[in-house]
């Protein structure tokens, strides 16, 4: 391919490899991470040798990890962190510290340098969040105790990983070399403070201003810019980019833009992480593996076994049902992508030499490749025995992770009334609205409101449409409302739709889409006004009520009758005419009946109710 620029050729290779390998891996039930790793191995120097400079691409792909940490930060709402403090900090620290110490001790006993033993321990103690987060939803284990525990521990590993990354350079062999001493430290602290303060004061107004421009791609650009800028600032003072991104994420965790940011950054994170995994696959040094395959097997089995033993001990003390234990153990016993990052940083800061690092990278990658196989084995052999030995159901400890069972799309004049009624009755609802200012106002009153476009499938999913029992469709724009109804009917059939119709045409549109609970927004208010007019004109209040309710019922019946004829103008008009005639006839009949009754009263008979019938003592 002479003449083609390098970036074009490499894009071709990377994208092609990913697009081929990932679907194949998923088809085999191995998950996308394995697919990326395999793609990397295939195109790397030990495979087809299409790419030889793995290091260069690794540097770029590291940005995927940065984005991932931004998203981790976004998830860490301080409130949620507090609710999950026990599983995260308690069990997380037991796992991370315990595994690190055990592994490092074994390393020391094997005669390794203490730095290498420690870094290897830290790297191997990590588990793959990416694999866990793709396996858990696939097996619908997210809401179980084991699923939540896996997520909690991974979360702690991520937080711990950031601390590790920050502290790693201190372990560097030539510590004295090139350090600017306290000046450097002060600069770093100052930058962190600046980011925290700036984030608190400036980020949200800036995002609001950008959101108001109502140009979705600019909001996406701003999200990326935000992460890149914080990363760049941190790197300028010699701190880790990942740490900066994480900080920015935490600062925005409570903002109304959280969901929108998540959705916008998500695909970039996914792609760059994929690239990262590909780069890792490419950088697995098979020369190292081949040189001593026995040692490699021993290390992989050894560290997985050691971690598994610790996890098994934890399971005994944690409230995890026994049947769920295998998943918990297998998902956390494997190595993880953060281990790559740790090793990368450690070699970068020349804490450890390159050769053992690539050996450990290979060990981690192999353990990750093993995970799907281990899960299949656990399913086949361990789980059935545990399940039959008396299953104890997990106790719901953490309510916080579950989504509200009611989701309100559109929180303008209409959705607001629905939401306030629900809220006043003690139920909670998640709100999604595209008006940044309204959302902002809502949040000031403590509502779980988010900014975003309700016709985007990904955003709906993040807002919890998959778990919602009821979705209130209160969007004022007819087209958007119908589009959202289509998406929800197709992708979230478990949710019942309660819809607002702007007018009759909109009503028909929703009706055709199978929406059962539709209210025309003007009907009831207009009927109330009609009642008032009747009252002012001398109709008894209760009679006016009955007339209005009867009109309402008749009107709705008519609408339902006409629905099948939608599109057939002539039929429609005839049905409408007939309906109007029916209502008129009904009222006419009632008027006559009343007249008759009055006439009978003239005969000396007055009885609408038995109490007016003469009793024996009358």
């Amino acid at each position, binding site marked *: 391919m002479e003449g083609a620029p390098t970036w074009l050729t490499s894009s071709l290779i990377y994208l092609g490899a990913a697009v081929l390998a990932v679907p194949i891996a998923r088809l085999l039930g191995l998950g996308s991470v394995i697919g990326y790793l395999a793609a990397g191995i295939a195109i790397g120097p030990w495979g087809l040798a299409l790419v030889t400079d793995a290091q260069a691409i690794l540097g770029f792909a590291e940005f995927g990890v940065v984005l991932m940490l931004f998203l981790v930060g976004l998830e860490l709402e301080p409130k949620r962190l507090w609710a999950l403090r026990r599983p995260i900090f308690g069990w997380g620290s037991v796992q991370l510290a315990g595994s690190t110490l055990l592994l490092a001790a074994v390393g020391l006993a094997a005669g390794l340098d203490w730095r290498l033993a420690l870094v290897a321990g830290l790297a191997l103690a990590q588990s793959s969040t990416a694999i866990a987060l793709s396996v858990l939803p696939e097996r619908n284990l997210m809401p179980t105790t084991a699923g939540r525990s896996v997520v909690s521990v991974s979360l702690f590993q991520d937080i711990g990983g950031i601390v590790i990354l920050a502290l790693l350079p201190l372990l560097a062999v030539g510590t004295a070399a090139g350090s600017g001493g306290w000046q450097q430290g002060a600069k770093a602290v100052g930058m962190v403070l600046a980011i925290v303060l700036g984030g608190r004061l400036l980020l949200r107004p800036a995002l609001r201003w950008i959101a108001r421009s109502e140009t979705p791609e600019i909001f996406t650009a701003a999200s990326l810019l935000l992460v890149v800028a914080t990363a760049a600032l941190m790197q300028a003072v010699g701190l880790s980019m990942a740490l900066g991104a994480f900080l920015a994420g935490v600062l925005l965790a409570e903002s109304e833009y959280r969901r929108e940011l998540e959705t916008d950054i998500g695909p970039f994170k996914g792609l760059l992480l994929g690239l990262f995994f590909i780069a890792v696959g490419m950088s697995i040094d098979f020369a190292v593996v081949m040189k001593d395959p026995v040692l490699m097997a021993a290390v992989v089995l050894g560290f997985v076994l050691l971690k598994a033993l610790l996890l098994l001990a934890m399971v005994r003390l944690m409230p995890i049902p026994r049947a769920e234990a295998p998943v918990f153990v297998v998902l956390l016993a494997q190595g993880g992508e953060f281990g790559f990052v740790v090793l990368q940083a450690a070699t970068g800061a020349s804490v450890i030499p390159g050769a053992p690092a690539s050996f450990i990278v290979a060990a981690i990658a192999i353990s990750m490749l093993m995970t799907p196989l281990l899960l299949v084995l656990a399913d086949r052999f361990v789980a059935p025995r545990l399940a039959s030995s008396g299953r104890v159901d997990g106790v719901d400890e953490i309510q916080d992770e579950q989504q509200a069972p009611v989701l309100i799309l559109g929180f303008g004049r209409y959705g607001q009334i629905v939401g306030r009624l629900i809220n006043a009755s003690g139920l909670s609802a998640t709100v999604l609205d595209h008006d940044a200012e309204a959302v902002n106002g809502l949040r000031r009153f403590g509502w779980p409101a988010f900014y975003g476009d309700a016709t985007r499938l990904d955003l709906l999913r993040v807002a919890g449409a998959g778990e919602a029992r009821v979705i209130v469709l209160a969007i004022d724009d007819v087209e958007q409302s119908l589009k959202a109804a289509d998406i929800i009917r197709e992708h979230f059939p478990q949710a019942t739709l309660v819809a607002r119709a702007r007018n009759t045409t909109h009503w028909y549109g929703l009706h055709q889409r199978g929406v059962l609970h539709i209210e025309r927004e003007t009907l009831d208010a207009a009927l109330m006004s009609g009642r008032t007019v009747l009252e002012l004109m001398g109709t008894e209040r209760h009679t006016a009520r009955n007339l209005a309710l009867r009109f309402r019922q008749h009107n709705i019946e008519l609408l339902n009758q006409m629905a099948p004829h939608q599109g057939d103008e002539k039929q429609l008009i005839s049905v409408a005419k007939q309906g109007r005639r029916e209502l008129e006839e009904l009222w006419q009949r009632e008027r006559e009946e009343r007249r008759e009754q009055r006439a009978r*009263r003239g005969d*000396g008979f007055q009885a609408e109710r038995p109490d007016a019938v003469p009793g024996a003592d009358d």
Partner: protein
Amino acid sequence: MADILVIAAHPQLEHSRATRALMEAAAHLDPARVHVRDLYALYPDYFIDVATEQALLAQARLLVWLHPVHWYSMPPLLKLWLDEVFAFGWAYGPGGKALAGKDLWLAASTGGPDTSYRPDGYNRYFFDAFLHPYEQTAALCGMRWLPPLVQHGAHRASDALIESQAQLFSQRLQSWPRWPEIDAMERTSQCEVPADARPAESAT
């Protein structure tokens, strides 16, 4: 159309034990024979579909009212149902023969124990005394008033007692009209309301 029409009315079914148990027992029977209508669920806005109710009544041979006793009477929605569905000229009065010959059975529960429905109890009257309006309603429409099934002290009744009452209710519905006491009863004839029963008065 069902032979037996059970009109159930409880304004707070979520707090009910007795009424709910009886409703569920009836709902388990053959729906082609026993039709249970939960009034408060059907008409939460107190807007009764009179035509439908009358059509169902016309088909039925036994009407059952199932309700808790509130203020010595029926819950308000059932009273409204009675007011609107048992219409003049349909259920009673000139031409009002739609219900004549049918049976009316009450299944009620009270909060107070049976000892309170005595001259020395806090309700001062035997429970039968509060049922005169029901009996007369039946008589005016030419319906046969069957001996009611009453559960006193429903708040404190044990689960077992509630359950056995529900069983009894279910058995009685299934065995109707082959009840031993029915054979001993006379056919009630409808009370005719004379056309000149009341002197003419101004229409208001």
